[in-house]
């Protein structure tokens, strides 16, 4: 009972229903056709564009997506263009309009979803999918909408608070393009809104509204060819809501009753082209295939809506079908239905939501229930093995990962073999599907199972899943696993050739490493010392391990592998398997340590060579992790819906820091990590880069460094941060046009971005000077931290000193200019304020300047300020000297002791050297060993030298000068740059001397003048200058 006819030229074709039995189709020829019926020979065509991708109809308006990536509205009667509703950067793939015709939602190949208010045409953009959107569907009750994507996920979005309330994973194989997708991902919402049918591999899964829990599922099977691979592609409910239709990518159409889940009708489309769109109206099903054909099926369901006569095959359902069922009844029915199939210890009721939660909680915590379940099932199958086949039991063993389940499994297997050979296969595949689906949920629920329903949903909506900084989505066939300042790691997932390339930016540092990805690594990080790779581990493989012959080679557990780049011995690599059911979520590596966050909220720290060190329990579900030297910086979802962070110092030099990450509103973390100098930075999805570098009253605080989004010209462009380098004053990022991630090929090039503190009124001269000052202060601080934190530097000490000095000078210069600007515009209070930030040298120049411009009150005030500052500094130094003396005394004592110790140690080492020497003179390895001992020897010497030299140099490091002596100031400013304050001042001085010479005679020696004069030309031993000569 079907016919096929030509509708459009070859290509993706969409169909939708209009009113009065009319329907609309559109295809790659760019026309919209209005059909009066399937047999209409004279359809009306509207020319829209060169290609059309999706169509929707609502109350006299046609909505069409064209090749310009625009969504256009046409009038149904007059066929006139009414305007463009919204536009994307890539083709729109699906359109849906809500019942009350107020909102439209559409998804595009550019991963974005727009929710458009049809009255105002304002839209809200939703992003969250990592691949082109396949379909969007509205909730009939208009509270939610749902989207599916080529990344194999479906996301439920709330229209009220615009949040993602639930994500379903692994619904179908991932694909890169919406045309190539194995599944069209078209799910259906029951007309009452209570039940959502989702195509999931070979099943239809039914989810319950609000709880988003899996209620039951219907397995689709192809009796003719049970091993055939196929995917459910399109789901649709019948107009009266009693039946569910599923269409697969192998052109099969199934109609099941949702009451008793029995198969009522099956249809195989004879043409070899997959069906890409479908509508069910009254008693006919209209569909279009990928070749532009349009078909019509009139399903001969025995208890058809048109004739209510019950037939013998569907006795069970027909009685109930006669009544017009309400949803509650329906669900009650379902529950009772399930109950009859389920094991007896699981008593479900629709009203109490705790039950399914509990059930799954138990399922996760240990698998005893599973076993019981399993046994029950197997027992039951003994009794009524036929029933399994009939009813497609949805609670047949979910996971088979406990060893002692083997027996059960075997018994079950035997039974199955006896009864139905095909059943086994089906159940196996079902298990796979099931566990794949559940994997994500299970992970989340380890943390959440205890919580109440409301909290649970709150959590779900705000939780950010774990990710690696500077990595691209897993769904891609070629992806970056990591890109940082050391190197980049690329993963290739082309079929049959799964590999990982580790490349180093500095070619002289290490050669490129190419490895086969046999353990399914998905996370990676690289530092100067090591490369870390981690596989997430999976339940499916765990099952396989039990079931199949392959078991030994496949690892079920999460695996951590570290490749050392500079190893003392020949072993360059070590592996470690996580505990069972503990899965790695993110990893990081620094010069000194390897760390990983797991699904148990553990932060496990390892030494580079594989020593297990600290295990830290995180306060929340981990999101992202980064390490630098001995610091670990981790972000997590904390309990009160905020994103927390912790910085741990494993060398116990500092205290651990905890707090809430400073993300802007509704933003997620896009990148998190340390700068090359070891300062923590975080970049959020609103484009703000924050750093934790500034101290306010001795504690470090977060402050914004740059708003990168403000520099982007187009809304859809994004920066993909790779790193921050304070020493070079730059943010390293990749500019992604119209996407959030860069592609692997062609190799993207870095863009270096300048720091731009979000100061107000950025164009004015004052703000620019302020910006220069703060930026340079920032870099200076960054470098100082770097010097403090790192033992073995990758830069010369001289270079660092030079850089710091440059930053200092630039900052001082900016400050001086600011001061002069304030003086020029007669804002003495502001000038004074600026002077308070200055150090003594700059302050001295400021006093000079103010006296020369004859701002005498200011000069006087500055003098007082300078006195205060000088005194404070003097006190500080006095303390320092005292402390140093104490330390020196202590150190000399200690050194003496140490020297004694060292001499004994040395003699010991010499002895052992001698022994080693004797022992290994013949062997070739002798050299290395001898070297290594030598190293330890020289190390200890170094330490000794350092300690003795360091202490006395502290005062000399900050050469103290009389701030009021002319020589002091000029001696400091020996910078090569022309713009240094000194030269500016000289210029000013020159100018001023000319003018002041004229008026000099008229000046009366005021007290202030006296004071300043005496200070400026102050001989040592006079006034406050005498402080310094004590």
């Amino acid at each position, binding site marked *: 009972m079907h016919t096929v006819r030509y509708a459009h030229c070859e290509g993706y074709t969409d169909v939708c229903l209009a009113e009065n039995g009319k329907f609309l189709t559109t295809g790659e020829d760019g026309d919209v056709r209005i059909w009066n019926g399937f047999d209409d020979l004279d359809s009306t065509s509207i020319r829209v564009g060169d290609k059309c991708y999706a169509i929707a109809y609502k109350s006299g308006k046609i909505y069409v997506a064209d090749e310009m990536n625009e969504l256009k509205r046409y009038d149904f009667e007059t066929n006139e263009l009414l305007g463009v509703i919204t536009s994307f950067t890539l083709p729109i793939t699906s359109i849906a309009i809500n019942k009350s015709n107020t909102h439209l939602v559409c998804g595009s190949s550019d991963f974005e979803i727009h929710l458009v208010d049809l009255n105002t045409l304002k839209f809200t953009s939703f992003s969250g999918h990592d691949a082109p959107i396949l379909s969007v569907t509205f909730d009939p009750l208009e509270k939610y909408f749902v989207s599916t994507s080529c990344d194999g996920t479906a996301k439920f979005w709330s229209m009220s608070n615009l949040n993602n309330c639930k994500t379903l994973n692994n619904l179908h194989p991932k694909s890169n393009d919406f045309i190539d997708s194995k599944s069209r991902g078209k799910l259906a919402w029951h007309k009452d809104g209570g039940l959502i049918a989702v195509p999931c591999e070979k099943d239809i899964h039914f989810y319950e509204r609000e709880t988003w829990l899996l209620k039951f599922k219907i397995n689709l099977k192809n009796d003719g060819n049970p091993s055939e691979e196929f995917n459910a592609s399109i789901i649709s409910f019948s107009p009266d809501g009693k039946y569910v239709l599923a269409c697969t990518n192998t052109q099969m159409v199934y109609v099941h009753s949702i009451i008793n889940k029995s198969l009522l009708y099956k249809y195989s489309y004879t043409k070899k082209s997959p069906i890409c769109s479908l509508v069910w109206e009254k008693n006919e099903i209209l569909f279009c295939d990928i070749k532009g054909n349009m078909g019509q099926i009139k399903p001969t369901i025995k208890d058809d809506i048109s004739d209510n006569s019950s037939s013998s095959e569907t006795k069970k359902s027909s009685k109930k079908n006669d009544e017009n069922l309400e949803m509650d009844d329906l669900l009650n029915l379902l529950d009772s239905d399930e109950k009859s199939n389920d094991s007896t210890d699981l008593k479900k009721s629709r009203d109490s939501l705790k039950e399914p939660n509990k059930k799954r909680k138990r399922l996760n915590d240990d698998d005893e229930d599973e076993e019981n379940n399993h046994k029950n099932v197997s027992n039951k199958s003994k009794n009524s093995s036929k029933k399994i086949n009939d009813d497609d039991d949805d609670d047949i063993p979910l996971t088979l990962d406990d060893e002692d389940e083997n027996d059960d499994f075997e018994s079950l297997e035997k039974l199955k073999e006896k009864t139905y050979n095909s059943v086994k296969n089906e159940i196996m595949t079902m298990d796979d599907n099931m566990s794949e689906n559940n994997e994500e949920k299970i992970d989340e629920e380890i943390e959440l199972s205890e919580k109440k329903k409301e909290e649970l949903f709150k959590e779900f909506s705000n939780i950010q899943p774990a990710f690696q900084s500077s990595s691209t989505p897993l769904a891609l066939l070629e992806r970056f696993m990591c890109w940082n300042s050391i190197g980049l790691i690329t993963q290739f997932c082309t079929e049959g050739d799964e590999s990982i390339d580790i490349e180093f930016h500095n070619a*002289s*540092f290490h050669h490129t490493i190419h490895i086969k990805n046999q353990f399914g690594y998905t996370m990676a990080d690289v530092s100067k010392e090591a490369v870390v790779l981690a596989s997430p581990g999976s339940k499916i493989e765990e099952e396989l391990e039990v079931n199949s012959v392959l078991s030994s080679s496949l690892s079920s557990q999460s695996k951590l592998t570290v490749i050392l780049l500079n190893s003392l011995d020949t072993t360059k690599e070590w592996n470690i398997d996580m505990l069972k059911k503990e899965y790695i979520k993110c990893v990081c590596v620094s010069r000194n340590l390897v760390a990983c966050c797991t699904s148990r909220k553990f932060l496990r720290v390892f030494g580079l060579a594989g020593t297990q060190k600290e295990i830290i329990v995180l306060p929340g579900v981990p999101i992202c992790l980064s390490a630098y030297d001995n610091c670990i910086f981790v972000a997590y979802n904390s309990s009160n819906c905020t994103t927390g962070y912790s910085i741990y110092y494993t060398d116990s030099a500092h205290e651990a820091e905890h707090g809430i990450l400073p993300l802007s509103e509704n933003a997620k973390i896009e990148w998190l990590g340390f700068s090359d100098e070891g300062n923590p930075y975080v970049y959020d999805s609103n484009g703000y880069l924050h750093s934790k570098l500034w101290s306010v009253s001795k504690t470090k605080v977060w402050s914004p460094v740059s708003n990168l989004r403000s520099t982007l010209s187009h809304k859809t462009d994004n920066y993909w941060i790779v790193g921050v*380098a304070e020493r*070079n004053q730059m943010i390293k990022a990749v500019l992604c046009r119209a996407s959030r991630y860069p592609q692997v090929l062609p190799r993207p*090039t*870095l*863009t270096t971005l300048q720091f731009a503190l979000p100061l107000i009124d950025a164009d004015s001269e004052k703000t620019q000077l302020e910006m220069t000052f703060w930026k340079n202060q920032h870099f200076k601080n960054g470098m100082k931290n770097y010097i403090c934190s790192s033992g073995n530097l990758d830069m010369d000490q001289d270079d660092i000193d030079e850089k710091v000095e440059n930053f200092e000078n630039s900052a001082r210069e900016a400050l001086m200019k600011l001061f002069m600007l304030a003086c020029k515009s007669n804002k003495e209070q502001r000038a004074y304020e600026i002077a308070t930030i200055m150090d003594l040298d700059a302050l001295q120049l400021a006093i000079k300047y103010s006296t020369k411009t004859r701002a005498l009150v200011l000069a006087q005030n500055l003098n007082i300020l300078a006195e205060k500052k000088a005194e404070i500094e003097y006190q500080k130094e006095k303390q320092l000297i005292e402390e140093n003396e104490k330390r020196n005394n202590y150190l000399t004592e200690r050194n003496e002791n140490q020297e004694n110790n060292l001499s004994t140690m040395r003699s010991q080492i010499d002895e052992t050297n001698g022994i080693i020497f004797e022992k290994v003179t013949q062997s070739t390895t002798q050299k290395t060993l001898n070297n290594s001992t030598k190293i330890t020897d020289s190390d200890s010497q170094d330490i000794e030298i350092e300690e003795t030299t360091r202490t006395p140099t502290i005062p000399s490091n900050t050469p103290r000068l009389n701030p009021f002596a002319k020589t002091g100031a000029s001696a400091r400013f020996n910078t090569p740059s022309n713009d240094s304050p000194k030269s500016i001042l000289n210029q000013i001085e020159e100018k001023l001397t000319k003018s002041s010479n004229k008026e000099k005679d008229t000046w009366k020696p005021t007290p202030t003048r006296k004071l300043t004069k005496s200070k400026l030309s102050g001989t040592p031993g006079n006034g406050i200058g005498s402080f310094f000569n004590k």
Partner: protein
Amino acid sequence: MDNEEVEFIAENELITIIPNFQYKTFYLIGGDIGPFEPSVPTQVPLWLAVHFRQRQKCRIECPSWISVEKLEEIMNNEKSSELFTQMPNAHYMEITNVLLNCAPQDIPRADEVKTLIKDIWDLRIAKLRSSMNEFIKSESLHAKVNNLTLLEINTVRNLLTKTLKELHNLKQHVPVTDE
């Protein structure tokens, strides 16, 4: 002045490279170069880029105009226009030549780029020849040609100037018969 000299001049053009080594800024008479950070794009003169590329010390970032699409557009403009059109770079021929010789891997679709550049060059030289022909035939005293690049001028300079000189000589020696 010969073509090598023109190329030498062209090698002073700045080009972006992505170094795979670290080095401090170095100070040359022509200006400061660097600092070099691995994977961070830096601008250097073409001669230095070639030098680094030959030692596998960097990857050359292709200038944006060296792409098949852009060059096709330029060629179409050149074809449709009577006059010479502005080239994306005053040394387009030399730069692409140098890059194609030393780093064809760094240029996407290098073969097509090569033929396109050659086509544009031929087109322009043909145009130049025909206009020269016209100029000499019309016996005009001067003509103005815009948007010629140094290398293009250099290819015709020797011939044109000498020819004009010879013509001038001839004209002076041939008695005017008509009047």
